[in-house]
């Protein structure tokens, strides 16, 4: 019941925040130089005044700014994110079409980085100061310090071009009409390299956080209490140290989960992964205002959703927060 009330309160606030974000994005984009009508007309090779004026009228760009804003906000409230003039399709359809691929990639990478990061962090903390600790820490740091696109390119070169083990680009084998399990396996093979690249990059953050947090908690009074009870070292670590040490990791994971949609632009570009990231990149290059606004709105909504989810999870794992009156 308490958690339901927490969610309800947060959702109500989220709606307000989202509206403010919509308005802010709208203002920012319209403040940027460049007129989509002029760009379109230019590309069509007919940059004469009359054609541009015609385009403007068609897309409502001749309306006063506030009217444009109001029209847009009204649309958003009715779940209508507008129409992409460039792609000749409703924005929502375009986004929904790409969203699954992006979520598949980023969620896989998220799970990889979280699991690998926590496990290696625990190992490093348990062997603090020994060579295992140094090895794990340095490896994680290496992946973190390496520019993501370079790592991606090297992975493609090694595993795809040289060894030929895995496909180096795309979401599925073009032209194959495999269905069911065969199709899933095909997608999975395509997923390995981008997901690993993206996942390894974030592993370092979780690893360091887990390690530092484990070491900090190890020095706390209740850990001494646990030892004084006669618990075995393993049990002390699992039940008392790890559980408490994971609290900050949950916070961090929540923050990162919010970036699942927007955070994979580079990876998607290098691996030609047909996701939101590339859609956004194209929209930006082509001044596709509506599409860009739509993507920004959806990623903002996801950030807020994951924030709420993090708070809910936190209130479950940490009774002090969940039960606060």
């Amino acid at each position: 019941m308490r958690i339901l009330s927490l969610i309800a309160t947060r959702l109500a606030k989220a709606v307000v925040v989202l509206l403010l974000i919509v308005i802010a994005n709208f203002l920012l984009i319209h403040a940027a130089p460049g007129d989509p009508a002029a760009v379109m007309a230019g590309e069509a090779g007919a940059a004469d005044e009359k054609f541009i004026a015609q385009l403007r009228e068609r897309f409502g760009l001749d309306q006063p700014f506030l009217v444009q804003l109001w029209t847009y906000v009204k649309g958003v409230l009715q779940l209508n994110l507008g129409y992409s003039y460039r792609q000749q399709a409703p924005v929502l359809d375009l986004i929904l079409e790409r969203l699954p691929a992006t979520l598949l990639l980023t969620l896989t990478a998220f799970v990889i980085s979280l699991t690998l990061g926590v496990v290696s962090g625990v190992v490093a903390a348990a062997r603090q100061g020994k060579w295992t600790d140094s090895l794990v820490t340095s490896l994680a740091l290496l992946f973190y310090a390496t520019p993501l696109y370079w790592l991606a390119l090297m992975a493609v070169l090694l595993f795809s071009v040289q060894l030929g083990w895995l496909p180096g680009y795309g979401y599925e084998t073009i032209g194959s009409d495999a269905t069911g399990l065969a199709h899933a396996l095909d997608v999975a093979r395509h997923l390995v390299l981008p997901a690993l690249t993206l996942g390894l990059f974030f592993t370092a953050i979780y690893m360091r956080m887990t390690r530092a947090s484990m070491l900090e908690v190890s020095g706390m009074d209740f850990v001494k209490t646990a030892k004084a009870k006669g618990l075995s070292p393993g049990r002390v670590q699992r039940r008392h140290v790890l559980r408490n040490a994971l609290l900050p990791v949950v916070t961090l994971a929540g923050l990162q989960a919010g970036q699942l949609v927007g955070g994979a632009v580079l990876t998607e570009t290098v691996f030609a992964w047909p996701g939101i990231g590339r859609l956004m990149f194209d929209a930006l290059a082509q001044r596709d205002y509506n599409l860009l606004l739509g993507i920004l709105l959806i990623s903002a909504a996801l950030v807020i959703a994951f924030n709420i989810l993090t708070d809910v999870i936190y209130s479950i794992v940490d009774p002090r927060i969940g039960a606060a009156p």
Partner: protein
Amino acid sequence: MSVLAIRDLAIRLPRGADRAYAVDGISFDLAAGEILCVVGESGSGKSMAANAIMGLLPDLVRVERGTATFEGRDLLALPERAKQAIRGDRIAMIFQEPMTALNPLMRIGEQIAEVFEAHGKLSPRERRERAVALAAEVGLPDPAAIVHSYPFQLSGGQRQRAMIAMALALEPSILIADEPTTALDVTTQAQILDLIRNLQHRHGMAVMFITHDFGVVAEIATRVIVMRHGEIVEEGERETVLNAPQHDYTKRLLAAVPSDVVPTAGAVRDTPMLEVQHLRKTYTTGGGLFAKPRVTHAVDDVSFAIAKGEVLGLVGESGSGKSTVGRCLVRLVEPDGGSVTIDGEEITSLDAAGLRRARRRAQMVFQDPYASLNPRTKIARAIAQGPIAAGTPRREAMADARRLLETVGLDASAADRYPHEFSGGQRQRIGIARALAMRPELIIADEAVSALDVSIQAQVLELLRDLKDRFGLSILFITHDLRVAAQLCDRIAVMQKGRLVEIGKVADVFLNPQDDYTKRLLAAVPGATWTGALESA
């Protein structure tokens, strides 16, 4: 009959520590059915000795020589697994900080039941039943329900009871209690001491009770060991050590214990330095769309005055609102209502500039001398910062800082050192010098000596008394310790749950308390009967 025999125990500290040995060749026996108090100031090695017996020494600290014979085996020579089997089963331990000694994410019952699990005893169901029974035995309210609570839902005293329940679970023959009541309020402390004494009696355990407080010793000890710098300087029955100490150090420690001997009140002048009227502060926490906010009246209609050159003690337990009062006076916390005047000037309505000027006249000294100094700032600078900010030329302020260091009994060379190079008592002197640098007329000392060892505490109190006389300072002395308040103050005000329940001359409040709560507080002071005995002796 001795259940534990310590012989020639030496514990080596890591290189770079302030001395080579934490404990240097101590020997003593712990007899069945006795409560042995190990007394000493911080750094005396008393806790290290206990941790060595439990096999819980910090990583870099190790036992260099000696034996600890328990049930025919040398605890110190046992392999880790065997030590683990003894911990919590045959020898149990409770700690100083009940607020942090319990796992915040586990229910109380689970944490009690875990002791049985650790030693592979009973079925899960029996463990749960025993946890409830133990909670009942240590006097936790509504045991069947409280085992489902989390630590944060319990008070400090209740948490310490839960710790004791864990320690008792397997009927150990030795209970080691490391300052178990130090962090508790005086009335709670009295209850926990009672509980430990009763349980010791009922279960026939031997208790090794570590404390720095001779009042507690007088309450609970059968025998006493006094430790200093890792060595035992005195050992004997309680009465002998308390009433006829042999060693100089014991004598000094005992002399430094604040007693009920009430000092003659200074001539109180009539002009009020500080006047507080109908002060209020309310905190509202929680609350959302659906939840009702919780309202706490931290300060509820409090009025008092302090004359020029007077020391008023503001006494109360934690949560009584005494610190909030102190903070409201200089608007570190904004009061919700009422009036505060310092030397006739209304503080509550001042704008930012006026408040800055007024704050020069009223300075605070805080409890934790470790946390209230910036570790990266040299002492002279820390002291001079205030005056410089208020417009005193830098050179002048720095010179004044050096003079002030001498005033508070430190060497002027201390000026160029960093806070970590000083002991707790020295840091508190620095804190006082920092307050004096502003040439205040009123000092608000919030638990200023509470974190200090008793002999250091006595020195700082002496310093405050001296400064008061020399500079004619008015002092609001906020403390939870009635005995300390009695030593320094002219009058005492007692707070409970945000209200001022009693105010009067020290002698009147002590000898003829009017309010029930004051009476309870006084009765709970540990060693109350012993101090009386000393006086008549």
